[in-house]
């Protein structure tokens, strides 16, 4: 087993570069090291100017998403040993503007997420004195999978529709809208409907299915979108067939 491994890291300095280029680093090869450990090693020992996002290093914060050999990955959960002995290529997430080195601008995702109203909407809030909104384990189970999303944006990097159409709401935002729609405590499904049932939202999705494949938390955004397509289509059928418009 070689004791070092080569990393090819995408570098982009907005002050001096017209386009990103690759820079190679030799880092110690350790079986228990993930890609993020190697990047931290480079920043500590070799080049302090290397810029990337990370925080929790345990797959919860969702900030260390990058392309590892072209595949969207959480670098804190991607082991060097799975790529050795060939060099590992690290690039910023696809489909996003690059701010510097491995850091992408996430404004677009944040705005799209906010548009989905990803919070509990109540027609009337009950007073605190009446206690919590209770939920059975079955009711929790109905949306739990979609609530695992950590906003890491790997699904956006995997989605060719988002790459080609910047107006597309994207997988995570729709999955999170669905997370609140399916929550028994939420009453906001009607508020979200006009945002979701749009060409820019669910109908923009062509079900490539890559979002689900790359999701590190097994959220299945592609499933969430197809399920909402079914809901929206049934809603439309009801509104056409029923005299009271499916209300």
């Amino acid at each position: 087993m070689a004791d070092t491994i080569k990393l090819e890291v995408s570098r982009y300095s907005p002050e001096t570069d017209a386009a990103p280029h690759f820079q190679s680093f030799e880092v110690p090869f350790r079986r228990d090291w993930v890609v993020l450990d190697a990047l931290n090693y480079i920043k500590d020992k070799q080049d302090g100017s290397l810029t990337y996002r990370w925080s929790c290093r345990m797959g919860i914060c969702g900030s260390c998403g990058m392309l590892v050999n072209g595949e969207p990955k959480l670098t804190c959960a991607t082991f060097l040993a799975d790529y050795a002995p060939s060099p590992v290529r690290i690039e910023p997430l696809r489909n996003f503007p690059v701010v510097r080195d491995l850091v992408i601008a996430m404004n677009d995702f944040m705005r799209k997420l906010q548009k989905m109203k990803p919070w509990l909407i109540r027609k009337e809030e009950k007073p605190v004195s009446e206690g919590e909104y209770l939920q059975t384990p079955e009711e929790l189970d109905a949306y739990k999978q979609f609530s695992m999303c950590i906003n890491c944006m790997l699904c956006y990097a995997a989605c060719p529709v988002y790459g080609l159409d910047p107006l597309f709401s994207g997988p995570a935002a729709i999955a999170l809208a669905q997370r609140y729609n399916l929550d028994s405590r939420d009453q906001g499904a009607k508020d979200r409907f006009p945002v979701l049932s749009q060409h820019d939202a669910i109908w923009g999705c062509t079900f490539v299915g890559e979002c689900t494949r790359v999701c590190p938390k097994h959220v299945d955004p592609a499933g969430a979108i197809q399920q909402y397509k079914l809901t929206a289509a049934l809603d439309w059928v009801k509104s056409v067939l029923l005299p009271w418009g499916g209300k």
Partner: protein
Amino acid sequence: MKSTAATPPYTLNHPRWYRKRVSTYWWLQRWEYLRFVLREISSVFVAIFVVETLFQIYALSRGPEAYAAFVNFLKSPFVLALNIISFFFVVFHSITWFDLSARAMSIRVGGKKLPGFMISGPNFVAWFVISAVIAWLLLRG
């Protein structure tokens, strides 16, 4: 947040951000993308089969001679090759469609989500049984 004319629904460019254009050939860069594009293209072959069947029914309505001429046309090497390719695309199309049914439907029985194969499985079984019955009706002589 409402988008107005002043704030467009996309992120404005920043002079120092690097944006990469998506290649025209993005669908050739990964097998998964190519598979997706082939699946979408398969609808063209489904349409070819539909049109062909309509012409076949039309030929049938015009009598045995017209039908024989149509069958002769189907036997030409080009049409035969096209039909073989179409057949594989239609099978691929059907498989991906039935697989999708399991993803688009979240059916809960007794509070538990039904596993995907329980939804797509009956679809596949129905597909095979109906196909076998039609094949039997057509091929029994």
